[in-house]
């Protein structure tokens, strides 16, 4: 029975992990953007009744998590019991039917030949995992074709197996699904064609599960929040303690855990202060990773692709994994910029044509893109953006992205180098139909260009910012950008000079060693050797602190500068809208006077047509005006938040780099003191 043990133990253990997911869902008390499932109504009362048991269930589930994964057979029944118990809570009547179901699985496993079992079992689990049908297909293919993806298949199995058990329990409840599940299990076949049938169901179920909990949260929000808040406080402390001091990158977003902390602390704050802005959406837990840069393509089309992994309840399948290249991140930036006027979009890294395949460049870029995505994830508005979700999920990204860009008129495909340059989409501004009309005529400002060739001295209408907030702030931002760039430059210089100091220190230390090797006398050689060693340590300490500096200050400055470009972009948006506004106003006035001239002949065709044109332009004008005003308000808000955030970030950066400097200073003193004590 050893064999079965091996199989069962991890499975049941993983079950607990699976059970964890609901818990984390619970931890999101402010889950709001979740659609209610079809079974919602049916379960609502039942669940609210069983609120407390549910909580218990969670508590119970946490403890097994700490148990050794290699549990003995004796342990298994216990867990089984628990599992059954939890099922019981959800569907009392199913206990009996559940047990046979389990047995049948075990039987099948035992009956199958050993070879088959390992393989097929894994595949069967796959069918269960089914987080995303697409990814799933991929993995199946890869397991069949290559052995290298075994690890992935294992991961699939982990989440998959419990899922099956779960599903099977459910399946009995809604007995129509039994057929497909059983068929799969009994046949033990690696039949990929059946997967699509089962997947949607499971997906739905997953959602159900998930929503159940979030519903509870809504029902008894206050209660739970208190619990979760304290739980998270504990978690925070734990995480903080565990965290290495200097591993922490600049921003909290860089590490998943700190992201959680931040969002949680935000929640806590809000709860405490009894939030005045109930309308503000809360960010749902959203984890993104950018990993595994791979060079793809031939000569001309060579580029680096990064694997983007997203995990969030917001995603249809909770988990997604796609390959994206740098260009796609630019697209995302432009697209978000277009979708959210007046919002500071986390910027992607700058373009760089030379040396873009060097290892540390790629790593740096990867890091920057990851932090970009992480920031997007944290923003409650941006994380739900459909283009962002498309970015995370789409399989045929190159064509879909083009389509989206065309649909929204964002111009994200013809991306300019400058992050602060923007394009105002007529579609977004005027609505689809009118925009089509406008675009046919060559854009909003086309009218003013008309006749431009004939009357060259008719000056273009110029937009003057009336709100001095914008002019002032814009100037300030420009100034700040300049200063920051200078700062970044000199930081770079410090870095290079520090590195050259380090290398010359090494040479120096080598030379001391040579002197020591002359062996004038024993103590002399020893002294010199130790002296050389100290210099070596100093050298590595120098290099480390230089690296540290680039990782903290450098990255932060870089990010700051790019964000400023993003800020400038929103100012530009306002300016552009303002410009449109002026153009339209001009046109409107023209039409109005035209109308006035035709005023006697109210029923003439010309009058009617002009009137129509006038009305369209008036409508456009009004639309643009509201947009212009709105964007102004939003920018003011956004700018305020931005500066506060950035200043805080900047201070953090300063503090961290200062602390690093202090630490390395201490190290340096310690080295010399030790040398002094032992040798002199």
């Amino acid at each position, binding site marked *: 029975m050893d064999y079965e043990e091996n199989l069962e133990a991890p499975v049941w253990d993983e079950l607990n992990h699976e059970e964890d997911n609901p818990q984390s869902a619970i931890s999101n008390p402010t889950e709001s953007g979740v659609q209610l499932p079809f079974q919602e109504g049916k379960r609502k009362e039942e669940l609210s009744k069983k609120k407390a048991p549910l909580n218990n269930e969670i508590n119970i589930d946490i403890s097994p998590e700490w148990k050794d994964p290699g549990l003995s057979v004796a342990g298994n029944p216990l867990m089984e019991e628990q599992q059954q118990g939890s099922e019981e809570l959800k569907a009392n009547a199913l206990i009996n039917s559940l047990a046979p179901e389990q047995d049948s699985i075990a039987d099948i496993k035992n009956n199958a030949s050993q070879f088959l079992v390992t393989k097929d079992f894994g595949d069967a689990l796959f069918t269960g995992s089914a987080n995303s049908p697409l990814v799933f297909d991929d993995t199946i293919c890869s397991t069949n074709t290559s052995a290298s993806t075994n690890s992935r298949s294992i991961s699939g199995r982990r989440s998959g197996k419990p899922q099956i058990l779960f599903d099977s329990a459910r399946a009995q409840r809604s007995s129509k699904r039994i057929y497909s599940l059983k068929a799969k299990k009994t046949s033990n076949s690696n039949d990929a064609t059946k997967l699509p049938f089962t997947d949607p169901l499971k997906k739905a179920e997953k959602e159900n599960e998930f929503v159940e909990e979030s519903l509870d949260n809504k029902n008894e929000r206050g209660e739970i929040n208190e619990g979760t808040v304290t739980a998270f406080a504990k978690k925070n*402390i734990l995480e903080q303690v565990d*965290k290495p001091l200097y591993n922490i990158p600049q921003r909290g977003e860089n590490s998943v855990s700190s992201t959680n902390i931040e969002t949680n602390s935000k929640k806590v704050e809000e709860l405490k202060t009894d939030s005045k802005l109930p309308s503000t959406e809360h960010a749902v837990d959203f984890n993104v990773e950018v990993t595994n840069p791979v060079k793809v393509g031939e000569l001309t089309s060579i580029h680096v692709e990064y694997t983007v992994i997203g995990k969030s309840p917001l995603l249809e399948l909770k988990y997604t994994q796609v390959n994206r290249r740098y260009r796609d991140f630019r697209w995302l930036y432009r697209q978000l910029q277009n979708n959210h006027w007046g919002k500071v979009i986390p910027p992607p890294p700058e373009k760089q044509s030379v040396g873009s395949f060097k290892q540390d460049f790629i790593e740096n870029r990867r890091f920057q893109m990851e932090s970009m995505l992480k920031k997007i994830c944290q923003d409650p508005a941006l994380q739900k953006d459909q283009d962002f979700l498309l970015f995370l999920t789409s399989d045929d990204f190159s064509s879909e992205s083009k389509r989206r860009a065309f649909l929204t008129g964002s111009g994200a495909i013809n991306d300019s180098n400058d992050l602060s340059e923007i394009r105002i989409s007529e579609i977004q501004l005027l609505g689809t139909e009118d925009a089509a009309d406008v675009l046919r005529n060559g854009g909003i400002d086309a009218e003013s260009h008309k006749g431009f060739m004939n009357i060259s001295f008719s000056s273009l209408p110029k937009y003057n910012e009336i709100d001095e907030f914008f002019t002032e702030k814009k100037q300030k931002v420009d100034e700040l950008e300049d200063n920051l760039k200078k700062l970044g430059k000199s930081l770079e210089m410090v870095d290079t000079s520090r590195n050259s100091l380090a290398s010359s220190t090494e040479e120096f230390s080598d030379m001391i060693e040579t002197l020591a090797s002359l062996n*004038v006398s024993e103590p002399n050689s020893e002294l010199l050797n130790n002296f050389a060693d100290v210099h070596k340590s100093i050298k590595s300490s120098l290099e480390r602190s230089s690296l540290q500096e680039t990782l903290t200050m450098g990255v932060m400055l870089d990010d700051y500068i790019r964000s400023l470009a993003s800020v400038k972009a929103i100012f530009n948006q306002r300016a552009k809208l303002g410009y449109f506004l002026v153009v339209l106003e001009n046109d409107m006035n023209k039409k109005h006077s035209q109308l006035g001239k035709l005023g006697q002949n109210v029923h003439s065709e010309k009058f009617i047509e002009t009137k129509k044109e006038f009305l369209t332009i008036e409508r456009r004008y009004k639309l643009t005006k509201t947009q212009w005003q709105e964007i102004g308000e939003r920018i003011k808000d956004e700018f305020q938040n931005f500066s506060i955030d950035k200043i805080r970030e900047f201070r*953090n950066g300063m503090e961290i780099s200062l602390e690093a*400097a202090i630490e390395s*200073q201490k190290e340096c003193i*310690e080295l*010399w003191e030790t040398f002094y004590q032992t040798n002199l």
Partner: protein
Amino acid sequence: MASAVPYDPYDDLDNNPFAEPQEDSEPIATNTDGSSSMVKEQINAEEAIGSDQAISTVNSAQNENATQSKTSSEQSGNKQLAQPLERDVLPERSDEKKKYSLLVKVVGLERFGSTAGKKENPTIVFDCSTNLPTFRKQQYKNVKKSYEEFNQLFKYLNAAIQESFVPTLPPAFTTFGINSEEDRIKVTRNFQLWFNRVSRDPLIIRNEEVAFFIESDFNTYTPISKSKLLASGLKRKTLKQLAIPYDEVTELAEFRPLVKSIYVVSQNLQEKLLKVSRNRRMMVQEENAFGQDFVNLDDHNKLYKRYGKILTAVGDIDSIIATMDMATLYDGLEWVIRDTYVVKEALTNRHFIMRNLIQAQQNSKAKQEQARRFRSRRDINPMKIDEALRQLKTATKSEQVLTLKLQRITLNMVIERKQWLTWYEEWIRNSIKEFTLRKIEYERKKLTLLERVRSDIRKADENGGLSRLGRHAVSVSNTDTSQTVKGDSWTGENNRKSQIPINKITHTEFDDELFTEDDGCTSQDSDTTSLNARHAASLLGMSTK
């Protein structure tokens, strides 16, 4: 045969001057008692084993000529100070009671004149007391000598006393900058060390030029007797190319390559150190620029200003460190380089003498051969015989002179070699020690500066930065420093204390500059900053050098 006899009063069977110059143990045996007894007196400070070795090797070098030493020392003895003639080739060293001594105390350093003169040619003021008969008085007060005069003396001594490694003069100035107090102290101390080394060498102090030097008026000294190096210029260069003659004294044979490597490596080391220092200066520039950019970042933000200023000050301290590196180790190596060069050349001179001796030996052998030929013939012109005998006599005599000279040189150098090595070790050690102490001092100051701004940043944002890492513990108070009288907060060892007094560390040269607009800190620091002001000014002036 008759011609050779008068020169060999202790002649025994094997010690035929016409015999092949081969290793012979008997003459050693006959002479050991005499020479070893004298050696015991002469080098009481040296280790017994080393000296015994030295003597045995000397004796083997003497070999066939050992017995002639007595007669030859009669001639050289005239120049020497009424010492028992037959006792020693090195009578100066056998001065049992350290009868003659020269005590010098350097009391000051003056720099005046043109800018170049100030730097290159300082005047050293010293007191002197001696019992050497070459001096007219016993006490000399406030003797002033310019560096140039010292240099003349050194040149003379180096050429005249081939037996010794004459200590080279220390550099006339240090990297501290000629205007600083540190420089004055350092140069004075270096000259004191030089005098100590010189007066420890009996051969040098007995040289009458030393007396002339001290007794002459300020800025008037030039060597009275002339001396010339054995070979100089192109001749020396050519001679150096020749193969080194076989050296029985392994200590000295190995010593020259060693010294030469020290010379070369030290030079390289100096170069590297210079590079380190230069790179550090470059870094300082960048650090200052960085700090300045921080200051300019936002006109209204005090925090950035302060942080930037601290960064600049840290950069300035780095610049001081660069200077200190140079002033301690670079200058230290400078003396080593100068000294190794002189030692190396002195050893080369010994080689020349060895080569001359070999030539003289060959010459006298040829002459003896000639004399023997004459003797075997019947029909000889008595004139020719006289001529031959005279030639033989001069040849033998010059050989004896050279032999004695080489003996003296070898014996003395073996002694001095040890002294020199001790000096070298001690000097390097001191340089490194000084280097380390300075390093510690300024690195600590850097730390102090950095920790000073820490609380400001902390105050600015209570919830940011490290508090996210659970570092609430960082106190907000301004007095939070990790270096206290009780030791360093970061080490576990309580008993370990820094060598540098804490109040020196906690106040940096830049305090007054940093806190000009910050009243809170100045009031608290004012007493010490005023004390430090002069020091700070001198350091500041120098750091830009």
